[in-house]
């Protein structure tokens, strides 16, 4: 190496390190500010580095973290189609490490585990019943853990909270309504009226929390009267206010204050009744009110929920025709069977 080259190298090295010394505190300060505002994602965990493939690694090394996350999320579809659940979980761990402030990936990763993987485990005939139960439980909890991991980074994300609530209130999973209510409470705190309604509906399904549910419904009504345009909200508000254990100062609404007229009240309450029977929604004096309306409106048998064989649901557009031209309900007969006409 000639003297000139050596001299040049020394000068260049000194120049670069000298300016490096000046700029380093500025860069560190800016990095700190951006990290505090969550503009810079946390460092990728060591174990995630080991799990990354060559392509993702190259992308990340080139500074394409969020682009790699987008493309990997599309590639993860293949693992879903092939039901490779552990691979899928690993892929979503990488995706969320690459783009941790994107709630969509937490949402999807949790959904794949808690819904798709858990359903696959529950319905897989190749597994023994015990193994099926064990796996389903494992995937449900893995999905819940995935959602919660996302929530540690995005604690104000109403959609993620509501996903946790949806998971633990799903009748096809292993419902835990108290757990669901806690999640929906957080979703309602940070989200719009949709999440508030969801919170109310869950509370109305937990025995012993009916008074709390009515308080929430009253508060929602004060905030926005448009909630009354939702049939379930109308029915719930009315039924909750028929609770005999309500304190003196609690909101007590009358039929006419919630429903447009008695016909509308009957239709809504008729459709609400299966939710009380099947999903555990609060009923209060629903049956008593329905019976009095049946007499008052002269409702035919096939629209009377207390008569076996009545319709499962009343539709607005059919109501008038069905009341004016009532069908006579007869027990079903099977010609040819002994003892039948």
């Amino acid at each position, binding site marked *: 190496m000639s003297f*000139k*080259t050596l001299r*040049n*190298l020394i*000068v*260049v090295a000194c*120049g*670069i*390190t000298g*300016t*490096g*010394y*000046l*700029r*380093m505190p*500025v*860069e*560190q300060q*800016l*990095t700190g*500010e*951006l990290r505090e*505002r*969550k*503009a*810079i*994602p946390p*460092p990728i965990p060591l174990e995630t580095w080991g799990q990354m493939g060559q392509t993702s690694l190259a992308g*990340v*090394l*080139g*500074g*394409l*973290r*969020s*682009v790699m*996350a*987008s*493309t990997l999320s*599309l590639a993860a*579809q293949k693992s*879903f189609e092939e039901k490779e659940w552990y691979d899928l979980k690993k892929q979503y761990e990488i995706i969320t490490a690459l*783009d941790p*402030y*994107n*709630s*969509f990936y937490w*949402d999807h990763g949790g*959904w794949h585990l808690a*819904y798709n993987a858990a359903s696959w485990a529950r319905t897989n005939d190749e597994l023994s019943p015990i193994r099926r139960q064990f796996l389903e439980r494992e995937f449900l909890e893995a999905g819940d853990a995935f959602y919660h991991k996302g929530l540690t980074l995005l604690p104000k994300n109403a*959609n993620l909270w*509501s*996903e946790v609530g*949806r998971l633990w209130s799903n009748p096809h999973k292993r419902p835990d309504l108290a757990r669901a209510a806690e999640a929906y409470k957080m979703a309602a705190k940070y989200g*719009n*009226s*949709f999440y508030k309604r969801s919170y109310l509906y869950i509370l109305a399904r937990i025995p012993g929390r009916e008074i709390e549910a009515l308080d929430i419904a009253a508060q929602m009504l004060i905030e926005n009267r*448009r909630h009354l*345009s*939702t049939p379930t909200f109308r029915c719930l508000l009315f039924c909750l206010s028929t609770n005999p254990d309500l304190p003196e100062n609690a909101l007590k609404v009358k039929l006419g204050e919630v429903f447009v007229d008695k016909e509308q009240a009957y239709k809504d309450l008729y459709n609400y009744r299966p939710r009380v029977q099947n999903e555990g929604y609060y009923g209060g004096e629903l049956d008593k009110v329905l019976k009095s309306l049946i007499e008052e409106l002269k409702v035919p048998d096939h629209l009377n929920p207390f008569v076996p064989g009545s319709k499962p649901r009343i539709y607005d557009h059919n109501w008038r025709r069905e009341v004016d031209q009532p069908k006579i309900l007869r027990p079903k007969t099977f010609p040819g069977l002994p003892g039948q006409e």
Partner: protein
Amino acid sequence: MSNPYKTSFFSPRRVIIIASSTVTQLVRMKVFYFLAPVALLFVGLQFFDNLFYQGPETMVPEQQLRMHKNLCLGTMMFFTSLFAIVFTALIIPSDIEDRTLYTILCKPVPRLDYLAGKLLGVLSVLFIAMLVMDLLLVITLHYRAATVSADLGRYLTAMNFSEIEVARGQAEVARHGPTLLLQYGVLAHFGKACVLAAVALLISTFSTSTLFTIASGFMIWIIGSFQSVARDGIFNAAEYGEAPGLADRILGTLISLIFPDFQLFEAIADASARAQEILLDDMLKLGGLTLLYVGIYTVLSWFVFSDKEF
């Protein structure tokens, strides 16, 4: 009496003339042809949807826009960074090969003017390319955001949401449309390309091979993306558990001092794709850092190039 034939130390006019000839030189190399597939990609992304979602009640409409922005900004960053290194690495050897360099340097043109002109020419080409890609991004994103916003409005109205909530939902979608924030991301990528071009210029002044310049440029691009990890280790040792040893600290300090920090540029571009707030102050600091990098690398390139013999 002053000598009318004396050459000034630095002349912006000379720099601009050399820069414009560099632009012509690069345009003749058909460098803008890459914009055709990029345009196709940006337009094609318009028709590309997320493959799956749970249902309308849980849909995250802005995710479609985020993915669009991520892929477009990523493409812009990749091509500008790549071309910043390759163009700069090619430009001086190409002048030597076709003997243009001798014609220029035998005239009273200071070498600083020559280098600054070359760098400005490359940056101008990158700027034009970035501008075209940015325009494509803005147009495609505008149409996509309008479609997503209209869909969301219809859905929320059908679900009995109040007008305020519909407006709030649509405002959230609009935040992910073509905004000033998005332009901050584009600017951050351009800043990164400027630094990479200046780095490649410095390497090409003492390198004897184009391949070496390109390879070194790429290595610096990669190390620069992780430089902040080394710096964090020095400043925030406790945050990552065990304090680093002496050797790690020396290595970390050297990496932090020598290599540029590209994570800041990438973080601002990513935050703009997420529609996360970026302050004007952040952009000014980033602009200042870019100027510092480009300035120091250009001055050092001039120092090496000043007594180079051809």
